[in-house]
């Protein structure tokens, strides 16, 4: 008897919805969507067993463009929402999608604690170094000299380093990708989703409308010249000193994911009142 591997039957198109994205032509996020569907097809997980959770922003529009279950929540809180979901439904694959404003600014605190909590999920930030949806304000990763209406002459503030922060906060998998390389991004997504614990992928995804200069990114990115490490100190030093365009899996940790044992009652609800009986 031959065993048919049903997974081979899955195609990226099975993971795409028929809703037309609101993104500007040329936006990097189209390619992120492409890598999502490719990665899901390669994983072979049925679309109903994947949940894509997001906040608010152009990037956060992605859930409805997939054919998976989705949650498009409020600005900045997707990681918290995903934590409640995953803890109670550990058998699902949970992918959280965010932007640099959503994930690093309004949602910054949740980012730290999600890394630290290390629940088994994958966090993808589509970083365009700008608030796209609100039409071009500086985000925590915008360069100090970048001029905007809200920050004439630039913010003068040092951008922060999401990958190092993720590492310091306890993320179990840290990678950087470029949206313009959907094949590489898809295969890193597959590894991230399969890796136990909290996986963080920063995807450089140009905003062609408010950051036309980011079209240059395709010429700047290059694969990391070093192999993935499981030593956080080594990974941090490399990240602190690289040029910000190093792509690949930069850290792969071995921390055990956090998952309380749900769904296995030890007592009947009727027994709880014993605490109160005189």
């Amino acid at each position, binding site marked *: 008897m031959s065993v048919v591997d049903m997974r081979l039957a899955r195609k990226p198109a099975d993971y795409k919805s028929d809703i037309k994205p609101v993104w500007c032509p040329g936006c990097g996020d189209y390619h992120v969507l492409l890598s999502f569907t490719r990665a899901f097809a390669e994983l072979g997980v049925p679309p*109903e067993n994947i949940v894509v959770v997001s906040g608010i922003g152009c990037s956060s529009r992605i859930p*409805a463009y997939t054919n998976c279950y989705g949650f498009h929540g409020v600005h900045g*809180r997707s990681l918290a*929402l995903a934590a*409640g979901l995953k*803890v109670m439904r550990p058998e699902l694959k949970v992918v959280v999608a965010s932007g640099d404003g959503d994930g690093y600014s309004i949602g910054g605190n949740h980012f730290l604690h999600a890394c630290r909590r290390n629940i088994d999920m994958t966090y993808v930030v589509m970083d365009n170094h700008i608030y796209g949806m609100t039409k071009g304000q500086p985000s925590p990763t915008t360069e100090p000299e970048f001029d905007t209406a809200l920050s004439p002459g630039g913010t003068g503030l040092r951008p922060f380093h999401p990958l190092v922060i993720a590492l310091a906060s306890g993320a179990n998998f840290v990678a950087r990708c470029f949206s313009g390389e959907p094949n590489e991004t898809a295969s890193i997504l597959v590894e991230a989703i399969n890796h136990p614990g909290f996986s963080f992928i920063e995807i450089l995804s140009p905003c062609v409308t408010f950051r036309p200069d980011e079209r240059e990114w395709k010429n700047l990115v290059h694969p990391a010249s070093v192999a993935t490490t499981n030593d956080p100190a080594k990974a941090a030093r490399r990240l602190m000193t690289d040029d910000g365009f190093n792509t690949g899996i930069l850290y792969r940790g071995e921390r055990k994911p956090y998952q309380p044992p749900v769904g296995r009652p030890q007592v009947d609800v009727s027994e709880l009142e014993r605490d109160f009986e005189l």
Partner: protein
Amino acid sequence: MLAPTKEARMRHRQSVSVAIVGSGGAGALTAGNFLLEAASAAGWQGLISRTVGPQIRGGEAAALVRLSTRAVECMPERFDILIGLDWANAHRFGAEIEIGPESLVISDPRGGEPPPVVATAGARVVEIPMKDMAKAIPEGRPNMIALGIAGHLVGLGADTWLALLEKRLADKGADAVEASWAAIEAGYHAAMSCDAGGESRTGLGRNLATPKRSAARRWLISGNEAAALGAIRGGVRFAAAYPITPATELLEWLAPNLAKVGGALLQAEDELAAINMTIGASFGGAPALTATSGPGLSLMIEALGLATAAEIPVVVIDVMRGGPSTGIPTKSEQADLNIAIYGCHGDAPHLVVAPQSIGDCLFTTQWATYLAETLQSPAIVLSDQFMGQARASIERPADVTFIGQRLQATDTGEAYMRYAIAAGGVSPMALPGMPGRQYTADGLTHTVHGTPTSNERDHNMQLDKRRDKLTQFNYGDHWATHQGDGDIAVVTWGSLTGTAREAIGRAANDGVEATLLALRLLYPAQPERLVAALDGKKRILVVEQSHGAQFYRYLRAYYDLPGEVRVLNRAGPLPIRAAEIHRAIMEWR
């Protein structure tokens, strides 16, 4: 006002009350808890509320205990017995512990001067050297002497104690039991000195009818615990927690108990995370809860709008404390009504309910869970510090059958529309894992499929749907407690229900009948039911613990109140007393 006769006063003595005060760490709260537990074991019902200063340790602490042969739902306006282990900071309790000329004050000569109110009240003071007596007993503690004194004064048999001490001090060993027992006995002997002069000032408990041993099982429980138990009974299996006074104990009770029934509690990094975790768990199919107080509810409001729009059931318990801002964290108030009903931006109708007593925290939270799940809506449960942190001995509440049952999608049939306009407004909800039913839950205005839109027709259709599912539901008789049939009606809510009930009982003793109408369902409003309940009433007395008369304004917004309306309202921390409501009833004629 009628002057009550001596007989009337005796008839009113349905309860005896004891306040034990001391510096933090002196053990006043332990003594109070033991007193309530022993009295409960002897068949009484009772209530303990603790009052502490804002300090975490040290400072002052008082245990306020009221015992009765019937259910006790509020504190008396005057305490029969006040025991001061020391008087270091007793003046800070101010009007919270009132005494009168008939009160008996026990003072330790080494505990400092009793506060001036003792002299002003004209109370009788008996000095008992509790500290010295405790010193004479190896390991003896003054609070156990005080407990013995209280035990004698309320008329508890000395035989009540040993079993209790063995149970409560099991982990401290036989010596601790021995020492406490010796101290309690010494307290009993010392208290006999108070009997000099006879009179019914002592043995106060003996004026109460001997409690009947009822067949019903008895519980000793706080409102916070009762709410948590009600939530689990209603089906809650997930909670997210960020600590805040006075809701923390609720979450602390849930942590181990959710685990026992196969659920989980996550400690969130803040309330923004807590509410969103709750929404995520519920989206996955687990009935979910978070508990907080005013400042936390403020942080949760945006996501409550999301849960309303995306139609995700969640239960949020707000154990109200004094506000605004950090306010008075350790004291009760009913001033979160406005934010609970109107806090969300946009038109965001959601359920708001309020328990009416410690025992009712169980029922109301269980009901709220059931309603939230049935109507796919957030439900805010407005408890308060008084109910939440007070502990009562009560008869075991009757079992109720409300268990959350969400209308779920099936995986057969035509194309799935998550937000289809269905009769009653509730549309079947798919859960992740169900094939062919994938949808994206969204806070953006959406079509019946869940797809974002800014079309006015879709917007109005979904607004109508979410309104109608709440307003068309039949909430039955649980919407309010309605008792009596006088043409004056006391309309109130929350923990003031018991206070109002007691006031109405006193008015009945004085020959005046009054109606009690206490609302449990605050949103959606039930205008037809209220009109029926208040039909023909000539005087409406609205009673609430809020400075801005929020409940009165809410009533005016949703209901046509008949007759003349008066409001008895006050901010916390001083609770509205039964005597004040009683007086307002009697004087309004």
